């Protein structure tokens, strides 16, 4: 035990005296969580909360143009610009402005678009009510449709583009339905000779209620903070490999590892001490990252991170992830010949494992074969375990499979490192 405690004390001294190392260990993960959560949140808000400026050119100047304009403005998500630097918009100017990246979206409502809807609605209604009307359904279909031109910045994300198109479709569908309904109402009024107006509710009768499939008794509300903090925390914890591989390789290069190996005590004690210290460092890192989610991010208007009711599950999950991250670092530190090798391969491998594990984009939207590969990423196991706690309100039972995988990964990593060390021994 003397050797173990002495090695732990030595590792702690080395860590606390390396100011740059402390910044990498503690400050960088906090900055990472802070920046990534804010960025991810703002991307998420772009559709929901941020008011995006849209170039709007209304040649229609009728019901459709008005409805789209009111709909977009009323949504609170968009601001419509009808001029640019005191110049009226035209198709050419919209093209140029989007091409230069000054705006992301331009909408052009063609002249007579409302009339096109009216004509079509009138034909449909008259065809339905007038038995003498020879217009058949094919003729109705053959009516020219109006084409709303949507200009998009080529750099815009597809999901974002799709959301704008869906919003526009809702507005146009509502106005089409309203016009058709008005014609129908008119026909009914004529037939029934009723003076009463028939009310049309464009919002429809169906409402939506959102329920989250969380465990019982949990009050966690999923939001970008609940998603991002655990995801980026797992990512940051695996970057422990940079200082730890450096520590192992430096010890090997300057001869201290040799000195320790030829002492009566086992070098394994030194390695265990190293692992324990770095697991603790990972734990502190995680706590600091939680602090960012609970204290700093709310200062910037983001929701407060909720830890959920299962603190013991959270603790087990953090320690398991820390053990996996530390073991992976020990493996790389043993195999790599130089710190440059370990740092560059290690960083890239963590980024790849993070991408595969669903840190960057959710696993469920990946192609099928990528989804199959993602289950071998330890970052995925860590992420899923944390999601069970942070988003689904799960307890210890729900994280056990992921804990098992992470510990299994750790055992295999250390075993390979041990075998490789034996193999390399001259």
């Amino acid at each position: 035990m003397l050797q173990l405690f002495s090695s732990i004390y030595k590792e702690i001294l080395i860590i606390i005296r390396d100011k740059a190392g402390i910044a990498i260990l503690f400050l960088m993960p906090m900055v990472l969580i802070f920046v990534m959560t804010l960025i991810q949140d703002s991307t998420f808000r772009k559709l929901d909360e941020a008011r995006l400026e849209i170039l709007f050119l209304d040649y229609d100047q009728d019901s459709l143009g008005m409805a789209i304009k009111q709909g977009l403005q009323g949504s609170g998500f968009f601001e419509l610009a009808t001029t640019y630097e005191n110049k009226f918009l035209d198709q050419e100017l919209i093209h140029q402005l989007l091409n230069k990246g000054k705006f992301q979206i331009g909408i052009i409502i063609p002249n007579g678009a409302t009339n096109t809807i009216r004509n079509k609605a009138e034909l449909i209604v008259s065809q339905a009510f007038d038995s003498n009307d020879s217009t058949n359904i094919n003729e109705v279909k053959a009516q020219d449709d109006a084409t709303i031109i949507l200009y998009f910045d080529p750099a815009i994300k597809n999901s974002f583009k799709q959301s704008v198109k869906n919003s526009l479709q809702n507005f146009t569908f509502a106005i089409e339905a309203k016009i058709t309904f008005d014609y129908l109402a008119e026909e009914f009024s004529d037939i029934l000779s009723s003076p009463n107006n028939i009310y049309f509710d464009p919002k429809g009768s169906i409402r939506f209620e959102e329920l989250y499939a969380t465990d019982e008794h949990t009050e966690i509300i999923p939001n970008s903070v609940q998603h991002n903090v655990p995801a980026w925390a797992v990512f940051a914890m695996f970057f422990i490999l940079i200082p730890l591989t450096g520590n192992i390789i430096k010890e090997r290069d300057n001869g201290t590892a040799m000195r320790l190996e030829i002492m009566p005590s086992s070098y394994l004690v030194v390695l265990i001490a190293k692992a324990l210290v770095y697991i603790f460092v990972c734990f502190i890192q995680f706590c600091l990252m939680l602090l960012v989610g609970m204290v700093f991010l709310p200062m910037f208007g983001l929701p407060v991170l909720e830890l959920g009711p299962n603190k013991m599950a959270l603790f087990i999950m953090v320690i398991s992830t820390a053990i996996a991250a530390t073991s992976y670092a020990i493996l790389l530190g043993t195999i790599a010949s130089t710190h440059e090798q370990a740092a560059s391969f290690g960083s890239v491998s963590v980024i790849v494992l993070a991408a595969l594990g669903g840190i960057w984009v959710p696993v469920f939207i990946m192609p099928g074969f990528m989804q199959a590969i993602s289950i071998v990423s330890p970052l995925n196991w860590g992420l899923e375990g944390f999601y069970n706690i942070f988003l689904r309100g799960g307890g210890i039972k729900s994280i056990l499979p992921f804990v098992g995988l992470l510990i299994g990964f750790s055992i295999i990593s250390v075993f390979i490192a041990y075998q490789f060390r034996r193999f390399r021994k001259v």
Partner: protein
Amino acid sequence: MTKESLIKIEKLFKTYKGDDEPALKNISFTIPGNEIFGLLGPNGAGKTTTLNILCGYYKKDSGTVQINGYSLDKNLKEIKKIIGVVPQDIALYETLTARENLRFIGNMCGMRGKKLNNRINECLELLSLDKSSYRLVKTYSGGMKRRLNLIAGLLHEPKILFLDEPTVGIDVQSRTVILEYLKELNKKGTTIIYTSHYLEEAEQLCSSIAIIDYGTILIEGNLQSLIKSKSEYSDLETIFLQLTGRKLRDN
């Protein structure tokens, strides 16, 4: 094992992975107890390989090694308890103080408490590092680091001390302190096995030597007897050059 053969090496053979040429070709020699034994040779001759095998850091391919009656193959743990090693590299933690380094190394050798503190103070004083012992090692000069490196190897008072070029790259003052300390240590009963390129230093320090080249022991025995036996040569350097030649050794 008698004083005559504290360390007995027989047919020690070693080839590094990937190398065609063996680093050691069945070398055999004995090192008497209570001696300062110089293992001398040009670069790449096999000195460090021999030392690293003797302390159990490298594996040998074949041959037998007995240290203080213990077999290297069967009693490595026992051997580790009675040997100290001062490697060629400054094997210290730069961001720890001298005392922190020594306390850690002492603990790893099973030393603790007052006994360890007294021993650290004694060694630091003897090698004139007591006044700077609370400074971080990274602030030390090359000579100070070498002296501390030496203390780290002998802190636990080993019976046998292996030194791999302990005075390389340091000033005359530090070298003198180290050599005088080694002589003092030897007087107290420590057997010292020492490699160096500095033949004048070896001549001044060693009681017996072996010259090794291309993995083969060329000559072995009491230094003064060897010089006397080769009457045409007056010093170790001429014997060395006669045996190893003047060809440059880049590795």
